[in-house]
């Protein structure tokens, strides 16, 4: 059992701050590192993987520093985001080379076992250059698992995978987490993280925005005020009926748009209220569109909170 400790860590490139004073612990089990693109997820993973020195603070495995310590790799398995991986080798040769670099006692057996874990035995004699994106990802996984690491770091592992490959990888990662390994993966897609991770760390604009299980994060994201743009057969009457309910916080008649701008505070209740009120008042709804549902706005709300 290994825990990654990130303690008051910052990383800047020139005068751009990529990671800003983050403190978090990544414990055994599956943790999702969630954040929009460019939030500093990769920078964090690079520091956890020993490929980037923290400008400030420390990143340690239990208590041993990772930077400039190649012995740490006995415990770390790394699945990089980039595609480069010795395409001229076969899948088996590639995983075997990784086993040999780890100086394992029986590299061929370890390579075969790792390829079996990711269910790639059927294509292990083919050159990597002939693999699909999903197959490459699985062989990368095999190379990261070949030495049975206690920590597994994956940078955007689901990028470009089809739904079936995604399911397979999720199942595999879940199993790794259940075995007591510390599995950390990054993603910018909430649904992905929610399905897989029992624990979520949210990073926005280089800062640690939230931490907890997915229910807590989900609540943080759904409890925020939601904004809707609504067009109906009688905007003014609809507005009057809606503002009477506690789930709305404010309604504006937007003359230029010929629509209502509604701010809801109780997401679930409001989504039930709106159609009911309209029906009872005999008002026809022409358009109901959330005006700030983008992930960016969800994240920026989290940062402000």
């Amino acid at each position, binding site marked *: 059992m290994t825990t990654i400790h990130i303690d008051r860590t910052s990383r800047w490139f020139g005068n751009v701050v990529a990671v800003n004073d983050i403190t978090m612990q990544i414990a055994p089990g599956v943790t999702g590192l969630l954040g929009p693109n460019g939030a500093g997820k990769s920078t964090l993973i690079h520091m956890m993987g020993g490929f980037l020195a923290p400008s400030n603070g420390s990143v340690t495995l239990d208590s041993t520093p990772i930077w400039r310590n190649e012995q740490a790799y006995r415990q770390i398995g790394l699945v990089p985001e980039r595609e480069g991986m010795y395409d001229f080798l076969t899948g088996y040769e590639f995983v075997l080379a990784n086993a040999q*670099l780890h*100086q394992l006692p029986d590299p061929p057996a370890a390579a075969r076992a790792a390829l079996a874990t990711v269910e790639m035995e059927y294509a292990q004699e083919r050159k990597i250059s002939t693999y699909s994106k999903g197959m490459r990802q699985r062989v990368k996984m095999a190379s990261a698992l070949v030495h049975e690491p206690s920590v597994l770091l994956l940078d955007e592992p689901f990028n470009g995978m089809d739904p079936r490959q995604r399911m397979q990888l999720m199942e595999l990662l879940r199993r790794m987490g259940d075995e007591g390994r510390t599995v950390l993966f990054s993603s910018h897609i909430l649904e992905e993280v929610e399905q897989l991770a029992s624990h979520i760390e949210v990073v926005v604009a280089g800062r640690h925005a939230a931490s907890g299980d997915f229910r807590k994060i989900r609540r943080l994201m759904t409890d925020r005020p939601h904004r809707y743009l609504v067009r109906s057969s009688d905007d003014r009457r609809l507005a009057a009926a809606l503002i009477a309910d506690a789930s709305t916080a404010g309604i504006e008649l937007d003359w230029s748009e010929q629509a209502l701008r509604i701010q809801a505070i109780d997401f679930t209740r409001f989504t039930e209220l709106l159609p009911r009120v309209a029906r009872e008042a005999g008002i026809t709804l022409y358009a109901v569109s959330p005006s700030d549902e983008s992930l960016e706005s969800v994240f920026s709300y989290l940062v402000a909170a």
Partner: protein
Amino acid sequence: MFNPTVARLTYRALLGRRRALMLAALPVLLLVVAAAVRGMTGADDEVTSELLGGFALATMVPLVGVIAGTGAIGPEIDDGSVVYLLAKPVKRPTIIVTKLVVAIGVTVAFTAVPVLVAGFILNGNSQDIAVAFALAAAVASIAYSALFLLLGTVSRHAVVIGLGYALIWEALVGSLVEGAKTLSVQQWALALAEKVAGNGADVSSSVALPAALVLLAVVTVGGTWFAGQKLRTLTLAGEE
């Protein structure tokens, strides 16, 4: 200090089809020209020295050195696959030394060996000219490999810089401009050839042999050490 797995990955990458063809082109050209010259003019020590010194040592060896030296690590850093070597409990200097050994082996195989063969074709090793230039090519291979491996580690434009160095500095400035000669791997290697070749062979270097050997050693060891240091702190940035 040597890791057989790193060596295997390196030479398989180096001797992939396209790169192997690039490496073989100049040596093949040298052998063809040597055969043609021998056929047309017969054995001639002066022509032999000119071809082996002017073409082989001044142009072919640095060019093959660029391809092998930068190719031993540059592409892996470019496409990010070097991460699979670095994320292992293997000392970074071991990775560099192993890659250096492979680059030297490949450069020697594609330069010193064809130079020796070409020398025998040209004048049957008269005055030891073939052996002298083969030895010079081997020594230059070592220094070039270290130099270009370092270049491949520190720069993404290693091939361009290396070609510029090989063609402009070594082939042009290094053989024409007096002052620049002392800072040319080619001249240091020539010092060895001068020592080995017979007196009538007209092989001369502008650097004395002891100084040349010291400089060769400094470049090789210094370059390798520095490359090892760079690799220890290599950051695979550029994704964000």
